[in-house]
């Protein structure tokens, strides 16, 4: 009998796409699936429906870093109840820190960028994880208990016929770090969340200047979508990090993705090639973005984008 812990950030809505994906995956790996979150519990009906068998909710003091609190709590839990055969975590900042610290505490290997995972009949795990910036997949045999950081949208969530799970409150772990959170800044957002928006319009270096990103926002707004970005313009400081799509940023899979002046480095493609339809505008006919685009226009994005906005606005108006 295998025990799998699923570590996933809480959601104001009481459930999240990420929780659904990870619990579904965990259900295929072990008989005992314990959902671990912090601050606020997940809806116990939802947790049960996706296959969790218990939920741990770690008390989180907002003045401390999530990883510092959660790792201590999980360590104390495992000392009492035994440590799990596998831990699956989402690919967020806090989760990566949790995985890092737990790997040291429990002397376990970490596999990141996981897109597939199964329990081997004998013992251990076989994981599939993205390498080479997402161009290849490494099939890896993992011998013993391990930590797996799973990429978003790698698993199709599914439910089973099961009742609600019990929630167990877990006290914050004893202080492991003297780091303190002094303040929080939440970026204001209009329109849908980038990761779940039905339409994503993203801008890249081809826009030529930070001011022109407003066209990306405008088209996104008109189409009821969200604005994304390539790493190049995030690094250049044109837009905040939370807009980045790709290996190190968000993974999106909208109905349509419109890439405006993005060349399409492998690291960007990995974050968006699960989109149902891809439209690309780029002046370089050989840009890699065209290899994944369903509809590509070779041309100057600074000319085409304003025209497109006018056309969309006209149709929306009529």
């Amino acid at each position, binding site marked *: 009998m295998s025990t799998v812990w699923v570590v996933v950030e809480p959601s104001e809505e009481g459930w999240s796409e990420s929780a659904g994906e990870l619990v579904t995956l965990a259900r295929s790996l072990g008989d005992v699936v314990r959902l671990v979150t912090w601050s606020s519990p997940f809806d116990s009906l939802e947790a049960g429906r996706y296959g969790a068998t218990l939920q741990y909710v770690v008390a989180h003091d907002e003045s401390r870093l999530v990883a510092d609190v959660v*790792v201590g709590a999980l360590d104390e839990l495992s000392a009492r109840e035994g440590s799990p055969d596998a831990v699956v975590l989402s690919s967020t900042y806090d989760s990566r820190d949790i995985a890092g*610290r737990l790997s*040291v505490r429990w002397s376990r290997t970490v596999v990141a960028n996981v897109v597939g995972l199964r329990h081997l009949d004998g013992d251990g795990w076989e994981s599939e994880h993205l390498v080479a910036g997402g161009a290849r997949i490494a099939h890896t045999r993992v011998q013993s208990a391990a930590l797996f950081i799973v990429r978003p949208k790698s698993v199709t969530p599914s439910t089973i016929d099961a009742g609600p799970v019990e929630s167990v409150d877990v006290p914050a772990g004893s202080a492991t*770090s003297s780091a303190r959170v002094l*303040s929080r800044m939440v970026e204001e957002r209009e329109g849908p969340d980038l990761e779940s928006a039905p339409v994503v319009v993203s801008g890249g270096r081809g826009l030529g200047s930070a001011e022109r990103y407003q066209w990306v926002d405008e088209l996104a707004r008109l189409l009821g979508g969200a604005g994304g970005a390539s*790493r190049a313009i995030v690094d250049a400081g044109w837009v905040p990090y939370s807009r980045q799509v790709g290996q*190190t940023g968000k993974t999106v899979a909208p109905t349509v993705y419109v890439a405006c002046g993005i060349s399409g480095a492998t690291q960007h493609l990995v974050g968006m090639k699960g989109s149902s339809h891809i439209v690309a505008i780029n002046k370089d006919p050989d840009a890699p973005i065209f290899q*994944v685009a369903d509809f590509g*226009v070779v041309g100057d994005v600074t000319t085409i984008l304003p*025209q497109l906005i006018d056309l969309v606005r006209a149709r929306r108006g009529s």
Partner: protein
Amino acid sequence: MKVLACVKPVPDPSAPVAYGGDGRLDRRGKLVLDEADSYGVEVALRLAEATGGSVAIASMSDAGDLSPLRSALAMGAEEAFVASDPRLGGADALTTARVLAELVRRAGAEVVVTATESADGYTGTLAAQVAELLGWPALTFASAVSVEDGVVTVKRQSESGTLEVSAPLPCVVSVTAGSVEPRYATFKGIVAAKSRPVTVLDLAELGLGPVDHDVQRVVEIVEAPGRAAGEKIVDEGQGAAAIAAYLESIKVL
């Protein structure tokens, strides 16, 4: 204050990626300093300058080719510590963290700076692992770093914005790409880098035991599923209308 910047030589990103039969990345071609590390080195130099300290470089890599580390030294680091041992080939992030934590102890550093993830491995857990091994706080995913009166303060990325987080020394910091503008090495720096001390240590000298390669073993490397390219037109004034028509055909417009 002594600041240690952890860096990694990676295959030249402009060359095609190749894997050996053992599933490991082929590192026989030209290696360069991971671009992500240039931000870490820059942050380390600024922290040292702000406190009248110095920067050392730490790396787990093949000491046969020191040129990627020399480029970090040329930016202004004073010395380098390199863990080099054939048994470390294919090591997982935890092993790498154990090795680097040992180099931190050797260097006597008070602040360790890393990138958020390497351009070849992309695990993104190393800073937290090194911090845990040392028993230090980890200020990770930082887009701005400052130090004052023995306290390091960073702006940390979160899923929805940023947090301001601080910790007293000693601590580990990981910095995001683009957080600072890395300086170019001057001619004087490049010349000086050639004579900066480089300490090379193997596993035995680091006091570390054998590496268990069975914890993770790559069985096969396959191409990630691709996507077929669709229609491509050249804009001659009709591009925007063609996109609008396409959006209409898929019922988005």
